[in-house]
């Protein structure tokens, strides 16, 4: 009896372990799910070898002068981006036959988790597509993770970038650790036909209060309609952060002083605004949209034109537009507080390109990125798959190809009319993002008063800062 029970207990313990093990294998599976991409990517790798003889016939003698080099290039993105990038790699390899570029690409899901472990264990790719929000944390923990582009000025030409844009996007205390891949930013996409029939105008600068009043007009026009649809992420990035920054002139968390950039009353004001927006039916009820998560535009309400507008990004406005084929859309101004101390909205870039500091082939990686950013053929192949290009070559090429039009281009033009403070850093850290989203969602659900939520949230943020 005893024996049996003890062995059963032991068995159960072993099972508990192996189930825990299953959790791990799940994540391993999702990694291997990315693997097919890698194997697919081997196809272009094989091509330059076929091309190599023709190149030598053309008089390129470089093949014998150089040791063969293999670079790894890691990025996330959809099929369109992958195809364009693979074509550009092909072209690069045919010009530099001794360099092979291995593509490692997949979805953005789990990308950062993978990248972090690779950086820590010294196995990151030579060329890395990077999320701007992650970069400050990486640079802070180890500035040797990335090569400084300014030290390789003889290989990579940075003159095609607008100087201050370059400085603000990927520049860290005089070091250029990242190069922006494009120009993008927050965008306000609205259904222009609906707006016209309701009598709303988003082309002139308006305030948060105006936005609220316009929301009430929408309700009067049709009770089943809402001015806005927003998820947890949008509440944070499109109301809490810009509103607070406009109010205080500081970012939510101040990077230099590692302190809160706002007072309790500021936060209460923002949360009360959010509460009013929900109480008056300006924003679609959170409980009906939250199950769509990050894919707000898959909500039938958006597809059936029940929502007049949506906060989005210039890199995604075209998708939002395409999701509602019956609607006609325009890009509106972004709300700014009257007497704002800061615009709160700012143009930045969707990603950086970085070169891994521990790479054995930094110079070849720089050579590749020089081609990637400054070559005419590369620009023709890459077009705007990473938003509107930041370099003069890229922009003029896209213009020639007629790609710079429509809501994506309009949103880029629009965001450049604002010059708010870039709040990348502590404010955009994952944990802070989660805390701020929770605060907004609690108010949206009416779970607690703005005062209480503000107090609790500030305590959480203080705790976060003290742990840093």
């Amino acid at each position, binding site marked *: 009896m005893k024996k049996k029970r003890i062995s059963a207990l032991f068995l159960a313990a072993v099972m508990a372990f192996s189930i825990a093990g299953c959790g791990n294998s799940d994540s391993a599976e999702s990694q291997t799910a990315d693997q097919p991409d890698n194997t697919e990517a081997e196809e272009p790798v094989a091509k330059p070898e076929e091309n190599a003889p023709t190149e030598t016939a053309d008089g390129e003698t470089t093949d014998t002068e150089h040791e063969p080099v293999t670079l790894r290039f890691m990025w996330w993105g959809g099929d369109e981006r992958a195809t364009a990038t693979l074509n550009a790699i092909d072209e690069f390899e045919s010009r530099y036959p001794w360099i092979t570029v291995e593509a490692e690409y997949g979805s953005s899901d789990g990308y950062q988790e993978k990248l972090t472990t690779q950086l820590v264990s010294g196995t990151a790719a030579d060329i890395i597509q990077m999320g701007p929000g992650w970069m400050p944390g990486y640079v802070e*923990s180890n500035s040797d993770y990335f090569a400084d582009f300014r030290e390789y000025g003889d290989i990579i030409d940075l003159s095609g970038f607008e100087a201050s844009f370059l400085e603000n996007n990927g520049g860290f205390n005089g070091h250029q650790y990242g190069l922006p891949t494009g120009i993008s930013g927050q965008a306000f996409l609205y259904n222009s036909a609906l707006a016209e029939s309701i009598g709303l105008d988003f082309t002139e600068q308006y305030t948060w209060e105006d936005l609220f009043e316009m929301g009430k007009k929408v309700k009067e026009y049709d009770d089943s309609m809402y001015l806005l649809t927003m998820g947890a992420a949008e509440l944070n990035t499109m109301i809490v952060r810009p509103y607070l920054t406009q109010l205080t002139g500081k970012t939510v968390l101040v990077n230099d002083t590692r302190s809160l950039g706002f007072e309790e009353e500021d936060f209460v004001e923002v949360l009360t605004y959010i509460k009013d927006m929900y109480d008056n039916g300006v924003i679609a009820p959170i409980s009906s949209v939250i199950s769509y998560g990050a894919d707000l535009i898959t909500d039938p309400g958006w597809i059936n034109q029940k929502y007049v507008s949506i906060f989005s990004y210039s890199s995604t406005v075209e998708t939002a537009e395409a999701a509602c084929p019956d609607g006609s859309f325009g890009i509106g101004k972004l709300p700014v507080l009257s007497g704002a101390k800061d615009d709160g909205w700012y143009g930045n870039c969707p990603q950086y390109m970085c070169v891994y500091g521990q790479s054995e082939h930094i110079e070849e990686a720089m050579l590749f990125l020089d081609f990637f950013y400054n070559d005419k053929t590369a620009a023709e192949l890459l077009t705007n798959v990473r938003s509107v290009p930041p370099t003069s070559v890229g922009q003029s090429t896209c213009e020639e190809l007629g790609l710079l039009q429509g809501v994506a281009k309009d949103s880029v033009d629009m965001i450049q009319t604002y010059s708010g403070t870039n709040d990348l850093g502590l404010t955009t850290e994952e944990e802070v993002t989660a805390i701020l989203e929770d605060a907004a969602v609690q108010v949206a659900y009416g779970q607690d008063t703005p005062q209480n939520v503000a107090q609790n949230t500030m305590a959480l943020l203080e705790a976060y800062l003290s742990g840093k």
Partner: protein
Amino acid sequence: MFFKKAGVGLKKRLKRKQYIGLVFIMPWLIGFIVLQLYPFVTSFYYSLTDYNIMASPRFIGIQNYIKLFTADREFWNSLKVTVIYTIFTVPGKLIVALLVALVMNKNLKGINLIRTIYYLPSLFGGSIAVAILWKLMFQDQGIINSLLAVLHIPTVQWLGSTRMALPTIILLNFWQFGSAFVMFLAALKNVPMDLYEAADIDGAGGIVKFFKITLPQISSIIFFNVIMQTITALQSFAGPMVITNGGPLKSTYVLGLKLYTEAFSYYKMGYACAVSWVIFIMITIVTSILFRFSSMVVYYEDGGEF
């Protein structure tokens, strides 16, 4: 060969035998040590450190545990969610599994095919695809609400309401009864027919037979299933992760999800290890309580001694 070496000393022979035995279990042993024992032991060490994987771990004693139990309100919420989830998932899933097993135990035509079909979903039961499907079905304007609307039943905010989100995820688990169902089916097949025949002669009805014969006969398997499902439920992760990502308002933020978020979103590896040890100790305690309890309700044919 062996006969020749028969003269070798007993000691040596024993040693040799042990060595060969070790070779045989080596594949399992290596896997166990590398993939289970080592992480198990190191995770305890890490739970006593401040470790963000960028820098080397810094020993801080039981600070993580103190913070977990005193300062972290999220932890108590997660614990509550996990306990509720377990309390409803385990019996629900087992009842569904037992009912299906009872039906499948009948000698119908083509029963093997039906059994296979019913087991099929559990082959991809815990998988992400099923969870995504569940999410789409229960979205605000998903198929479930559309059906309810057709029938003129008021629609429900399955995933958007803080009260309904957890029950919706628990419901998904009722349906993932596969492994428990197979166990029950095997156990039902092992119940001696003569007991039922004797009961028939005594004039017992179906319900009496079920409670007086079937249930006691399969009680050991019920017990086994309760333990296994409890362990699974306490470690649940995939469903809440995919369907609601812990929301709305952390109403489905189970401990497994908290563990993942602390580790892979916030890179607080030490803290996450502390969470995992709390889960482990919780499982150990619950399991031993269940074992205590088992002697009262579980019937062993051999009296439990073998």
